[in-house]
């Protein structure tokens, strides 16, 4: 017995609807959502398009925020937005950030991506605004002497300890102020590191 002709209408509708929804789903329709942030506690490799101190700082900050986010149990994106958008930082955030940055230095030392101090001297001197004679004298010091006197990880860890992160984060919009604070902390760290070295020698 032949099915009546009108059955074609509901059958065509079912085929059309199943076909359209099937094609949408087969092409990823069910998963067309915003990018999901990755787990901050998973190992992350970071790169930078910049060389020297800028590149080093960027990689440190990216790893440091990632480590801090892992400690705080949030995504690194949520923490970045929190730090950028609100003016009050909790003690937990500051502590996590400091620990995260120090952990980042250790990670970079471990994977060999931390440059020797001699690699950074020229750039540091160019921006240090030192007396010309002193600057020339420092430039004459052989790289091996600098590298044995100053360990990059030691200087960075001291600088991170010295930094007033709360004050630093309050001035994110002021690039000049930011650089002044970082420079002061790094200079202090270099001085402390050298003194420590001298004390050990004596």
């Amino acid at each position: 017995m032949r099915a009546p002709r009108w059955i074609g209408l509901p059958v065509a509708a079912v085929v059309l609807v199943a076909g359209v929804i099937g094609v949408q789903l087969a092409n990823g329709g069910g998963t067309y959502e915003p990018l999901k942030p990755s787990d901050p506690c998973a190992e992350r490799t970071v790169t930078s398009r910049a060389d020297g101190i800028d590149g080093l700082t960027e990689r440190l900050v990216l790893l440091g925020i990632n480590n801090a986010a892992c400690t705080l149990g949030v995504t690194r994106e949520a923490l970045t937005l929190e730090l950028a958008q609100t003016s009050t930082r909790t003690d937990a955030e500051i502590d996590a950030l400091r620990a995260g940055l120090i952990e980042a230095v250790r990670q970079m030392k471990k994977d060999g991506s931390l440059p020797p101090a001699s690699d950074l001297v020229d750039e540091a001197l160019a921006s240090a605004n030192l007396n010309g004679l002193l600057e020339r004298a420092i430039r004459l010091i052989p790289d091996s002497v600098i590298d044995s006197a100053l360990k990059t990880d030691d200087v960075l860890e001291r600088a991170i300890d010295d930094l007033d992160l709360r004050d630093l984060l309050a001035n994110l919009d002021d690039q000049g102020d930011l650089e002044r604070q970082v420079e002061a902390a790094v200079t202090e760290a270099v001085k402390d590191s050298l003194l420590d070295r001298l004390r050990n020698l004596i």
Partner: protein
Amino acid sequence: MRRAVAPLLAVTVAMVLADSAVVTLALPDILQNLDASVGQVAWVLIAYNLVLGVAAVPAAAAFARVQPRVFSAVGVAVFAGASAWCALADSIEVLIIARCVQAVGGALALIGCLEQLVEVRGERRGVATWVTAGVIGTAAGPVAGGLLTQAISWQAIFVVQVPFALLAVPAALSVASAPPQEADRHRPAVRANITLALMSAALTAALFLLVLLLVEGWGRSPATAAVTVSVVPIAALAAGPLVRLLRPPHDVVEVAVGCFLVAGGLAALAIPPSAHLAWTIAPQALVGLGLGLTVDRLTSQAMEMRLPRARHAGWTISARHVGVVVGLAILTPVFTADLQDAQEPAQEAITSLVLDAPLPPDDKIAVAQALGDALSDERGQVPDLHPAFASLDVDPRYRAATDQLERDLDSQLERAATWAFRDSFLIGAGIALLALLSSLRLRRRTS
């Protein structure tokens, strides 16, 4: 003049019903030009449908006491005058009031035009013309509104209605007929009207939400959105030949299949694989076919052989527009809340892309600052990131990477907006399935 009467009355019916959704694509322009809030501007749409839904039944009751030609002419004239007032409105409050008056005129015009069309074309053809004009108007409203807004301005939507409506006034006056004297012989077709109301709510999801997704979510121009949503009326026209080919034995089959197609189309609109306009074509074709199979059949069922005709027309108009308002009332809070909820994942996705962008740190910081400003100016809408990138001064070596970042960020916003509309489209599909269940109990009146 006699020959032009029926077309002019049909155009008036189409305009009144097109006005139910005609401003959808103009809402962003109205919001900006009249310095309104999102909540206020939604009332430009809601007020018209609410007043039309509420006024239709009393208007039909009043019809029996007035000369039909006077009733129709007054209705069309009020509609024309209020349309001109809408175009001249210089504040959102005035526009909303003018839209209310326009809806009152529209309610009178719809009831009056039905009787005039029956007078001119006879019972069956007159009602069919009225129903068809309504379906075309409903489906074509957003398209016409979008094209006019893009080509001229939002005011043009209302200005173009005035000459047609003014020509319809003498047309209505030229049809002499006595006030109908029929007593209330039939009860309202409750089931058909409920199904019609549910379908109107579902179709609101299709037309209103899709237009918003295209313009606000995917950043397309009103004209592009208008051309895109023209698939719905074109597909609606294809429903007739399909029915003639397959000859279903009962209206119930057509209506049930139509409801199913609308539900399927809305479900498909909830899951596009990307923000490419092509992915909306097939779902819209399903919705259009469904609209073509249901709205005129349900309207005919609710009115066919029921007297007084005007009273039953009043119920169908009321059902349609109350359905639109209920649809807006259900869907608007859902998608606005979802859009709000989508901000966080969108911002995190944007942050992730900026942090990992292959750009020097200074450029990343500049991008982040520009984006921060753009995001804080969003006023509850999906932000336009292009001005932030256009003002960036980056090293030419990194221009390509910056352009790629802009495309990736736009893609994240499109993903977030699409995601935010998903629940609303699925709710619309659910309402269409409710209409399907309701339609299965429809029976053709035989007496």
